[in-house]
């Protein structure tokens, strides 16, 4: 027997990608789909993602953006420290806050900060940044194996799935446990491609785990047009059209930064 789920995060108001994912994941055998939060940010018309999530009955973990918007906080708690990163984060946050309906803010405020379940005998923990801190960046090249083993042990789980960085990666740990960053469906992975990424996790008999990242094509040109009609900064639109990050770069470690062009 095999149990198979799909996990995505970092929606960033990209309702086109979300709609594409909700069609794509079941075709790939996912019996259940989970969202790891950050519903708003860079994209247009933030209210458009909520009916899609509710109609498909998607369990959603709260991201820092959702926590901020839901609790009327002053900023997105993204964890940026560079002035330019924060400048763009501010533009994005103010737009999203202003254009999110009160009922959706309340819905986000009440989201769970983690979800746990058993998948074919394997304990799975879903969170936004890390199990211990919602806005912790866990980058592939600055997170040691020993640290991930500690996180799994401290939180009593075999698999941790997180997002927050916007870049997908997976590490099988020596103990047999796994850490997965599902990436983001809201914007490309700074790889020069216009697709976005989510993950399919399959647990086979004898607790054998397969982790498969899925490149998701969607109508990015329509998204770009809608962003422009909402007068969203051209820097954000450029990322959607080119696949290269133009903002929020200073938080990247060297290897992740070097893979991009900006």
């Amino acid at each position, binding site marked *: 027997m095999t149990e198979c789920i799909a996990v995505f995060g970092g929606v960033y108001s990209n309702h086109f990608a979300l709609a594409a994912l909700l069609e794509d994941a079941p075709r790939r055998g996912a019996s259940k789909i989970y969202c790891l939060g950050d519903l708003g940010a860079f994209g247009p018309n933030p209210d458009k993602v909520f009916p899609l999530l509710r109609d498909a009955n998607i369990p959603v973990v709260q991201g*820092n953006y959702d926590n901020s918007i839901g609790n009327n906080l002053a900023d997105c708690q993204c964890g940026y420290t*560079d002035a330019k990163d924060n400048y763009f984060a501010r533009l994005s946050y103010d737009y999203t806050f202003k254009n999110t309906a009160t009922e959706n803010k309340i819905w986000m405020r009440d989201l769970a900060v983690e979800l746990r379940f058993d998948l074919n005998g394997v304990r799975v923990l879903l969170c936004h940044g890390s199990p211990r*801190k919602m806005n912790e960046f866990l980058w592939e*090249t600055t997170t*040691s194996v*020993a640290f991930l*083993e500690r996180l799994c042990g401290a939180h009593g789980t075999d698999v941790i799935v997180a997002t927050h960085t916007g870049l997908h990666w997976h590490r099988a740990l020596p103990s047999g446990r796994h850490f997965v960053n599902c990436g983001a469906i809201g914007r490309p992975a700074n790889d020069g491609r216009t697709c976005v990424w989510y993950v399919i996790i399959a647990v086979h008999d004898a607790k054998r785990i397969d982790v498969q990242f899925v490149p998701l094509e969607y109508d990015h040109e329509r998204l770009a047009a809608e962003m422009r009609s909402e007068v969203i900064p051209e820097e954000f639109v450029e990322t959607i059209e080119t696949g290269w990050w133009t903002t929020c770069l200073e938080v990247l470690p060297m*290897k992740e930064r070097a893979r991009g062009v900006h």
Partner: protein
Amino acid sequence: MAALIDQTETECAPFLPLSSLDSLWFQVAGTLCNLRCNHCFISCAPDNHTLGLMKFEQFKPHLDESIRYGVKEYYFTGGEPFINPDILQILEATLAVGPATVLTNATRFTEEKIARLTGMRDASAYSLELRVSIDGFSPETNDPIRGPGTFDSAMNGVRMLVASEFLPIITSMRSWEIHEDDYFLREFKAELAKIGYTRPRMKLLPSLKIGQEALRDHGYAKYEFVTESMMAGYDETQLLCHNSRVVSDQGVHVCPILVDKPDARLGTSMRDALKGYRLRHQACTTCYKFGALCSNATSQSMEGKRLSAHSSSQNNPATGSSPNEG
């Protein structure tokens, strides 16, 4: 010399337990440096033997032990790490188990060293970050602080790193008014572009008014301490001593800024590193105000962080961490 004023126990300096040993620093060069900068908060110099060079044999047991504690990332500082003959061996061993960041003045690079660094960077799954200290965008603005010829020498080091596809983090201590940051960054980026560094990563640090810096500029005012009441609503995860310790040739210390203060030495083993610490030094106020001081991220004012924490009526999971971890 300005006296180092300590807060007495009766004044109740806040006690900060180590929440989680996430980053481990190694004072690999001790207090020894080929330069004698007049803003150095631990007064490193060619003849300051307060702390010595760490040999690979001294370093390796701590690295091995750190794995058991689940350390996330490693930092190397001094003094100047690249005067340590064992530094490349130390970095190679580190990059086998985790990410490494080296704080350097970039004046000691050779083509051979850069080639070795490039090789170990490419062989590792982890990042090898080089943080290069340069305190001005010209010889006129840098050399009065770091010494004659150091601007050209350090920029040459940066040029070599960039030619080998490193993206060094240029780190400068703010010796100007904060409102002049944009001007400073603009001028510096223009200089870096001339040597081929077209997307520079920059980090500005506030001045730590101890050691040589207390003489160059001025020390702290008598009232500048962190108090218990200041910690209410404060995001203590921003303080390095909340999740980090530093190892030298003489033991385990609470943080790199206080590494030469006798009371900040916690013991000899990693087990000793787990002890908490009272924020009794005046330099603690600079960490308190700016946060993320020693991490690779740009330092920021913590004003906004405190406001955010206060405006939430509930426990804020974005800024909290499990108290029982580590």
